[in-house]
């Protein structure tokens, strides 16, 4: 990993008090994202992926812990962040159908971030918008004056990407950018995102529930379960030697399309149970109710993050013997 993380979260916690009890959406997670890498954050619904992203963006202030961007702490809510920071961190949402205003033309949609950040005069903005559309491979003359409903789902997502890139960000959060799209369209969006990351030197936090997709885009993969990270590893190692039982369960549950892929899946772990409610998290390791290899200790003590090898971190009692390795970046 690079010595210089662009974003780092340190013991980040986000709790939501509700009538039913405290929802522990994000519960003490720590990770670093190096400049230029793509961190894939994978988890089932309700595991806290989106809340993590929203803390990064400042939609919620963290309950405890720190997030820093470029070395400076950013753990405050959106309205109290300075504009420069908002310009640097942007987001692409899951469903372009609901994240683009249907009453506005694409030109109006793209001009908002430019105006807010006071970039260029009206004329310069028009040429900037054309450039942005060219960047996402949409011919500007054809698309600038269209409304979102007049274009397809994939094209809408490209407009959403163009909007995110309008302010020359360095860090983009991609919150399931392709899960609302068909596979034949997904490929185009993903390849576009990867090309843009290279050309514009972007760093991504890529949130998804699709592990096969992660295999093809992420440099590192982090698995989240009930508000906690289970395992973080560089992508090739992650898929070659997954360690956490939950990771193995996830990987062996993916339906694959070829027999070469079948051979790459870990030994079948029969999945059982469902993700418990985040209001009522089990004691000890939150995964122990579904774990095929649980030990007596698992229901009592919450495991610590263990460093297995360079960049491969896992949080499980199976790997807890070496207490000297009991550190986390």
């Amino acid at each position: 990993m690079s010595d210089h993380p662009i974003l780092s979260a340190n013991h980040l916690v986000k709790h939501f008090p509700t009538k039913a009890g405290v929802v522990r959406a994000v519960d003490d997670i720590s990770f670093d994202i190096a400049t230029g890498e793509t961190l894939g954050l994978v988890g089932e619904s309700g595991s806290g992926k989106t809340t993590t992203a929203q803390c990064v963006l400042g939609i919620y202030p963290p309950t405890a812990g720190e997030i820093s961007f470029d070395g400076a702490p950013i753990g405050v809510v959106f309205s109290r962040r300075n504009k420069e920071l908002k310009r640097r961190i942007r987001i692409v949402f899951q469903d372009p159908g609901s994240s683009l205003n249907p009453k506005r033309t694409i030109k109006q949609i793209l001009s908002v971030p430019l105006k807010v950040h006071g970039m260029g005069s009206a004329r310069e903005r028009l040429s900037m918008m054309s450039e942005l559309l060219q960047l996402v491979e949409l011919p500007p003359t054809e698309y600038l004056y269209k409304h979102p409903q007049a274009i397809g789902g994939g094209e809408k997502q490209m407009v959403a990407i163009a909007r995110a890139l309008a302010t020359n960000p360095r860090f983009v959060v991609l919150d399931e950018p392709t899960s609302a799209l068909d596979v034949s369209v997904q490929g185009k969006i993903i390849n576009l995102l990867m090309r843009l990351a290279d050309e514009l030197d972007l760093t991504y936090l890529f949130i998804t529930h699709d592990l096969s997709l992660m295999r093809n885009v992420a440099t590192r993969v982090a698995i989240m379960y009930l508000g906690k990270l289970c395992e973080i590893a560089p992508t090739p190692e992650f898929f070659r030697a997954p360690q956490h039982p939950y990771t193995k369960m996830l990987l062996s549950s993916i339906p694959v399309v070829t027999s070469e892929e079948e051979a790459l899946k870990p030994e079948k772990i029969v999945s059982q149970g469902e993700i418990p409610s985040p209001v009522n998290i089990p004691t000890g390791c939150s995964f122990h109710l579904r774990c095929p290899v649980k030990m007596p200790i698992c229901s009592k003590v919450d495991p610590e993050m263990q460093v297995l090898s360079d960049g491969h971190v896992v949080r499980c009692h199976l790997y807890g013997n070496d207490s000297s390795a009991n550190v986390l970046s």
Partner: protein
Amino acid sequence: MDGLLAIRDLHVGFRIFEGKLRVLNGVQLDVREGERVGLIGETGCGKTTTVKSILRVLPMPPARVSGGEILYRGEDILKASRRRMQELRRHELTAIFQDPLQSLNPVFTIGTQLRDIVKDSAIGRGKRLSRRDVEAQCIQALQETGMPDPGRIMTNYPAQLSGGMRQRICIAEALSTNARLLLADEPTTNLDVTIQDQILRKLDELVEEKGASVVMITHSMGVVRDLTQRANIMYAGSIVETGMTHSLLEAPKHPYTQGLMASVPKLTGEGISDGIPGRIPNYLDPPPGCRFHPRCEHRMEICESEAPPLFSVGDAQHVACYLYREAA
């Protein structure tokens, strides 16, 4: 041929303000007794319209069947009386839909809904069950789907259950009628992979046990590969390729299927292709000839004027593409 269900050249359209949406354009589908068939297609290609035509639950109007026939054990469903149709739905055909929240009634408990189904399908078989028998069968149906504590679940409302549990209830309901043909319309699309795995495994076991036939409708090729023997690929209202699931997915022939297979992200991590340019046609004014031709890189002159029939390419595989005209 001991066909259970045969769809022949089915055309279904919808009359709307702007004109006529020609959605299904000559669908051909065969399901044999005890067979599991996959129907793969992207959003808006007519998968659900096909299912609803089989069950005759399409709202008419706006929908209109403009040609073709659906033969269930040799009997044309499209010509069946309402009474006969109800009989068929009661103990021959059954369906699981994508969104269990929409197929379960939110104001009745699971028990009320399940009891109705069990009672009704028994009456359909000419039997009147005692209250205790109904109760026992309901509990058994829930237990079969791996539901913990079925007694309590019966008193719950759909909103009190998680997505995976709701889908299990839909499966329990669908299978408690002892139907011969199960139409599963994207039963796991809204669920997480680990839950999807559980649900599909359960569905697989139960179908095996009861010896029912299944039409599995989905956009996920992986699901079809795991669960079915034969697969059909659908594009813009017609079947473009059909064959044994494994050989079809190993060696797709139709340009659309090939494009689709290349765009699926794989665990081998070799990257993904750019997908298929363009998008599904507008059904108000679909392209003439092969509906895929505007997006096809191999298009020939004939593709623009004439729709290709299914050509045989060996090993029970058929492709609707003029590239394989000589092979036939």
